[in-house]
């Protein structure tokens, strides 16, 4: 039997690390094949090899049964291989149509024929039900639509083998559902798909078979019908995974965060937070559920002093911190795991050690009279690396060179170690593997047990439901309802997130 794709004994080395070690991957014609593995297991690397971005040090690639050398993306395109990358490969300033036709432009007398390009894109998007506006600039469209543009790019090139590298990490639940439908439709047309994801649910919903890799090595390929989420998870991590649940009793203490009548403008001067009221107590995890773009980001930024508050008040431990400087708010007891860890959470060109004291470097014992105590900092860093199991060669390694999961661990270590009264965790596990998620969830629960207040913002309903003591649903800039996780389910939350209050009334 011939495979759509067969990669045999692939080995790929980076300076100091073997990313792929003798990996074999067989994708059948017309299937959705999951590629599953922890962060840094080598999934993206393997796919980049297949797409011609990397040359393997060893191994062979067969496409539709024929041995091929894929030297660059042009070769891949010629062979019908298209890839939607983990980080979108779109040019913000170009229109959707320009992004799609780039590299294979329709021409008239040697001049770009944009009218034709737009027509082609319209046709394609209708054919596959991928709704996009060809004339809009990419910087102006939603992440979901960007995803569709990426898919259209591959379809425009006539790809029949599609690689999706973690397409769902940045999508909302609704968008994920849509994407899975699209994938199924594409497979129905005879295309084959490789899907990389960390979410077991998606694998079981969408895929036919699954290949598990760990630390650059093949573990196994199984049919989805023959396995279950728990097995798959432990296969990946190499041990039993305990799904962390918030089993500590709900015992709220005094108010730590108190928000009253908050109003905030977004960067376009539109009201995004409207008369929002919210209280978080010590000893509780309060989850904020909501569809992306309902004011979550602005709310957190307002609390952290990163965005101006137009009206209303924010108190931490009865301290009014409204419109205070970020540093003052941090000193008042705020800890913050930001959504974009690389951009906001870390100085990537600082060492791991330096990153560990990003908010405390000027305080005792790390400094005195403006002079740094580097020895103390190093000692602290070593201790945290050990305690939080950060996989790094040493505390002097640059944060940039760490894998995403380990970068996140550095941030969590730093924030938790400061033991803030209020810990905001924004999408703390996005893009992380199950092992890392387990670890971070454990830490959040620990904080709660210590009597700290935790504000959890996540698009993952599972995460919210598992961890929260109370769930606040945010819709169009205010809290539409607060529910008890034990007395609710995904359906009810979904309705609330869409703005519908119990009893069917529109909010």
């Amino acid at each position, binding site marked *: 039997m011939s495979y759509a794709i067969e990669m045999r004994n692939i080995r790929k080395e980076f300076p100091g690390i073997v990313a792929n070690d003798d990996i074999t991957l067989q994708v059948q014609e017309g299937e959705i094949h999951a590629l599953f593995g922890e962060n840094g297991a080598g999934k993206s690397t393997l796919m*980049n090899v297949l*797409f011609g*971005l*990397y040359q393997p040090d060893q191994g062979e690639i067969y496409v539709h049964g024929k041995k091929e050398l894929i030297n*660059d*993306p*042009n070769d891949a*395109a010629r062979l019908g291989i298209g*890839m939607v*990358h983990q980080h979108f*490969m*779109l*040019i*913000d*300033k*170009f229109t959707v149509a*320009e*992004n799609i036709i*780039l*590299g*294979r*432009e329709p*021409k008239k007398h*040697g*001049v*770009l024929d944009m009218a034709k390009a737009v027509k082609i894109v319209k046709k394609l998007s209708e054919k596959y039900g991928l709704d996009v506006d060809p004339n809009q600039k990419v910087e102006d469209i939603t992440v979901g639509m960007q995803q569709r543009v990426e898919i259209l*790019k591959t379809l425009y090139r006539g790809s029949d083998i599609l690689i999706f590298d973690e397409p769902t990490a940045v999508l909302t639940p609704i968008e994920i559902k849509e994407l899975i439908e699209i994938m199924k439709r594409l497979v129905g047309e005879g295309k084959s798909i490789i899907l990389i994801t960390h979410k077991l649910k998606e694998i079981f919903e969408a895929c036919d078979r699954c290949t598990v890799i760990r630390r650059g090595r093949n573990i196994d390929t199984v049919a989805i019908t023959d396995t279950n989420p728990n097995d798959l998870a432990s296969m990946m991590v190499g041990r039993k995974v305990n799904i962390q649940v918030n089993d500590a009793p709900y015992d709220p203490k005094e108010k730590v965060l108190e928000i009253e009548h908050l109003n905030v403008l977004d960067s376009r001067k539109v009201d995004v937070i409207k008369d929002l009221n919210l209280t978080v107590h010590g000893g509780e995890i309060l989850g904020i559920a909501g569809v992306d773009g309902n004011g979550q980001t602005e709310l957190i930024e307002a609390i952290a002093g990163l965005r101006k508050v137009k009206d209303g008040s924010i108190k931490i431990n009865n301290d009014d911190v409204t419109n205070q400087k970020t540093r003052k708010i941090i000193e008042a007891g705020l800890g913050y795991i930001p959504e974009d860890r690389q951009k906001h959470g870390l100085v990537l060109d600082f060492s791991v050690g330096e990153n560990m004291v990003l908010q405390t470097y000027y305080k005792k014992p790390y400094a005195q009279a403006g002079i740094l105590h580097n020895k103390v900092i190093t000692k602290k860093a070593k201790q945290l690396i050990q305690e939080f199991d950060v996989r790094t060669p040493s505390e002097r390694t640059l944060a*940039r060179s760490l894998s995403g999961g380990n970068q996140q661990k550095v941030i969590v270590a730093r924030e938790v170690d400061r033991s803030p009264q209020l810990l905001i965790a924004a999408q703390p596990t996005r893009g992380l593997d199950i092992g890392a998620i387990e670890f971070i969830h454990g830490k959040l629960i620990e904080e709660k047990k210590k009597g700290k207040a935790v504000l959890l913002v996540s698009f993952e309903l599972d995460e919210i439901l598992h961890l929260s003591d109370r769930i606040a649903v945010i819709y169009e800039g205010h809290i539409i309802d607060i529910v008890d996780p034990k007395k609710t389910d995904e359906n009810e939350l979904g309705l609330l997130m869409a703005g519908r209050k119990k009893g069917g009334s529109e909010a």
Partner: protein
Amino acid sequence: MSFFEILTIIIPSTLLTAAPLIFTSLGGVFSERSGVVNIGLEGLMAVGAFTAAIATLGLEHAGLGDASPWLAIVIAAVAGGVFSLIHAVVSISFRADQTVSGVALNFLAAGLTIFLVKMIYDGKGQTPYITHNIDKINIPGLSKIPIIGPIFFQQVTYTSYLAILISLLVWFIIFKTPFGLRLRSVGEHPAAADTLGISVSKMRYIGVALSGVFGGIGGAVYLVTITSNYNVSTIAGQGFLALAALVFGKWHPIGAMGASMFFGFAQALSITGQQIPFLDRLPSVVMLTAPYVLTLIVLTGFVGRAEAPKADGIPYIKGQR
């Protein structure tokens, strides 16, 4: 002096000074649109001016007469293109910091051209004067139009009009052709272009080489229309001014042209101003610094934020995270 008379002095002078800046900043547009910062424009102009001097002298000697400076511009274009390849190799293939490489290019050009002049002319620090310049003329027909004629079409060089036409052409190439789309794509998001099978290095090499060609032309035009011989101080800051024009013009060919015109105007004014009533009372320093001060003011966003191509200045390394 009447206002009209002032215009007949300032406008032709503006056109004359602007032409080399226009060419050079257009070169910058190509390079930076492809994602390679080009601080080396100054050096490219120097190479262009030097080559134009040598070439014109040679061609004159060979008896080519009035064609000499024109041919010399072509030769200077080639020389600029070749010289810019150093910047291309070092900053694209060898991944050197582009600003650093550009700074070194300026050093090299300044040293090398004078070194060569000394070699060629037996230790002298400057070339002889060319005898066939590209002269200022009255454009037949157009210069006779009342009012407009004397202001825009008398005492001008063809190179000025050529510069304006070419900036339109560059605009067309960059925004209306597949080549332009690809060039811009590698300047905005090289990894994306790479995944679509566009060779980032190739496009960037072309971008830099074109900047060399245009920078060479810019320097050559400066020489054959303005200075007529090459020495250490022939190219002293014009390249940096062209760079400023490029930023001022928001990396847009027409913008760069407009900004160059503006700088030309400011310079013309700073010289002529001393003979214009009122303006002659301003301290000369105000006029002299005007182009630079105004650029700063413009950059503060006073005329809308300028945005560089996103990947401008960042070496592209395949597969780097």
